[in-house]
């Protein structure tokens, strides 16, 4: 028996590896191993006030810090009977657009693209693809800036709180981000063209099931009260446990999810498949132009989906900034009860993120956090196994198989810190 290992999966957030166990040419198993140490955050926030919880839980993950905060806010506001004012809602949507631009540009360019072009990192691409890398850095910096303007800081901003914001972004800051968004739209269009021109290998292809939140008013978006499943079903977020069925596996500190005993995928591709018809602007045109049947079975298409989504986010920032600045700053809405429960669901750039809370006499009694990567892990392993089988059958070298597997894992934009809360190829 032989093992093919990727000891430390590079260009992902967190500490993981991949192990492929081979018996001759037969692939016995492929596992995505999470080495990241456990943190037990759900247990640590027990007994805290909801406000204190909001300080701690964004620290689960730096890349989806605002998604964690927003999901928790949605769950806790339901639990405490808080209805956020309109301006608060809009400013939250604006911060999510910023996070989407930041995270999607980081993942597509700095983490995923080097594989397709044959480089070890985006920095190594500078000589040959300097314009592309610099364009990506501009977009990323802009996304960070929108996050800072809305949340107070580029990472772990504390400004969004229950019932409102500590301080709303100023008119001047909003005008600036509006102007800059218009300037950067052509950059984002070029990114879509670049990602549409890449060769996406067929090895991982198989039928897939996708889930995402259902944004309200039949619009595309990153938060909602129900979950769309690509089989046509829809479910209330309060029933999240039926969708995610968490379980523990022996090779990882990250929990796993199955829906009706089957693995599923969350992320930008899932959002496009469930809500792509709701896109507008140039993003809609490019989506129509590049969408095809392969999106339904190839997880690598998530890279292109993220590029299109980044454009959509960018196109919506000016309008959202206008809406925010048109309204007077409301006062912070206070809890109307101290005991209750609620579930928040938002679309982090890498997929649906649930925060469920039960609050008793003003203190957190139960916290249940289900991250997108935890939901994706089973499907990542399924597509990696197919890739390993097909590449070995095609007599690919171990090095090529390793890269093929890493590309599948990376396409999911995994957040291992989140899930712990990645390639070893083992021949036995």
């Amino acid at each position: 028996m032989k093992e093919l290992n990727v000891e430390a999966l590079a260009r992902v957030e967190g500490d993981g590896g991949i192990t492929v166990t081979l018996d001759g040419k037969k692939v016995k198993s492929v596992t995505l191993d999470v080495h990241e140490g456990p943190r037990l955050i759900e247990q640590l926030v027990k007994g805290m006030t909801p406000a204190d919880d909001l300080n701690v839980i964004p620290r689960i993950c730096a890349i989806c810090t605002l998604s964690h905060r927003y999901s928790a806010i949605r769950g806790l506001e339901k639990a405490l009977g808080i209805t956020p004012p309109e301006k608060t809602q809009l400013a939250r949507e604006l911060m999510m657009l910023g996070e989407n631009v930041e995270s999607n540009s980081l993942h597509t360019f700095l983490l995923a693209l080097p594989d397709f072009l044959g480089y070890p990192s985006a920095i190594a691409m500078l000589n040959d693809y300097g314009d592309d890398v610099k364009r990506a850095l501009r977009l990323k910096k802009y996304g960070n800036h929108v996050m800072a303007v809305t949340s107070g800081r580029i990472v772990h901003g504390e400004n969004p709180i229950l019932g409102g914001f500590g301080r709303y972004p100023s008119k001047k800051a909003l005008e600036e981000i509006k102007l800059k968004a218009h300037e950067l739209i052509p950059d984002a269009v070029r990114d879509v063209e670049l990602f549409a021109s890449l060769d996406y290998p067929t090895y991982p292809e198989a039928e897939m099931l996708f889930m995402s939140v259902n944004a309200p008013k039949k619009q595309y978006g990153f938060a909602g009260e129900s979950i769309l499943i690509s089989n046509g079903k829809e479910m209330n977020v309060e029933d999240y446990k039926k969708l995610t069925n968490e379980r523990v596996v022996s090779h990882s500190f990250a929990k796993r999810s199955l829906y009706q005993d089957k693995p599923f995928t969350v992320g930008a591709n899932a959002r496009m498949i469930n809500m792509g018809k709701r896109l507008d602007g140039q993003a809609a045109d490019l989506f129509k132009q590049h969408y095809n049947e392969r999106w339904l079975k190839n997880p690598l298409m998530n890279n292109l989906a993220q590029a299109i989504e980044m454009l959509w986010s960018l196109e919506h920032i000016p309008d959202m900034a206008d809406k925010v600045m048109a309204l007077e700053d409301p006062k912070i809405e206070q809890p109307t009860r101290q005991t209750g429960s609620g579930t928040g669901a938002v679309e982090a750039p890498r997929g649906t993120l649930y925060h469920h809370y039960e609050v008793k006499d003003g203190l957190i009694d139960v916290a249940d956090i289900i991250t997108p990567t935890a939901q994706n892990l089973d499907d990542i392993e399924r597509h990696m196994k197919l890739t390993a089988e097909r590449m070995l059958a095609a007599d690919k070298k171990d090095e090529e198989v390793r890269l093929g597997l890493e590309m599948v894992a990376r396409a999911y934009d995994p957040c291992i810190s989140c899930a712990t809360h990645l390639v070893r190829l083992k021949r036995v």
Partner: protein
Amino acid sequence: MTKQSPKIGVYGFTGCAGDQLMILNCEDQLVDLFGATEIRSFVMAKSDNHEGELDVALIEGSISTEEQLKRIKEIRERAKVLIAIGTCACHGGPQAMKLGDGGYEERYKKVYGNAKINVSKAFEAQPIDAFVKVDMYIPGCPIDKGEFLGAVTKLVAGRTPYLYKFPVCTECRWKENPCMLYEGRFCGGPLTKAGCGAVCPSHNLPCVGCWGPTDDLNVSSEYNLLKEKGYNPDDVLRKIRKFGGANVAKLLKDIESKGAKK
């Protein structure tokens, strides 16, 4: 220059990867940073990583598995200078907030049940200096771009970085923010190290203490002062312990021994 470029390794342990992300967030300086130094290892950013002798090891995260413990010791052996970056590496971070309360096993069971996990034996998270010598601390949750780049620039030039030693209150004065403690809002500022630019008070929000305890802090006196002002001691403890982890636990012992608690 290239021959003398300092060899740097960036490593992440248990945490949120926010400090490594902050390095990648230096978009305007990233190209220069990779040019002026030889980044030998940075797994989050690149796949051509080479281990070996290092001039500077930048460590993010706390230590919470046997495997990590082995690895941090091995990095320490081959690094001339080891810098803890971020609050988790410096103080243990949120995952160390209940360090030493004896409840770890029970919390672990509640999350993972009795399932067998054969990855590496886990234990309650602790800061880096619980296991190896740390030469420099750059705290922050996450680290501040300016403070980080300032320190790296000085190191590359062979000089000693200047790092903040005073509390957030000083930065609040610079920004002319009104003091929240006078408004009856408990603020972690007096207990917390500066470096963030007093970002929360500048947004009309009390400091959450995410930089960890400041140096040369007279905790006992500060604690009594807050108590006199009518703040609930239990709230104060909980607030400052959220990020300060292990080091706040030490401070608390000190307060208790001086009879300040309750």
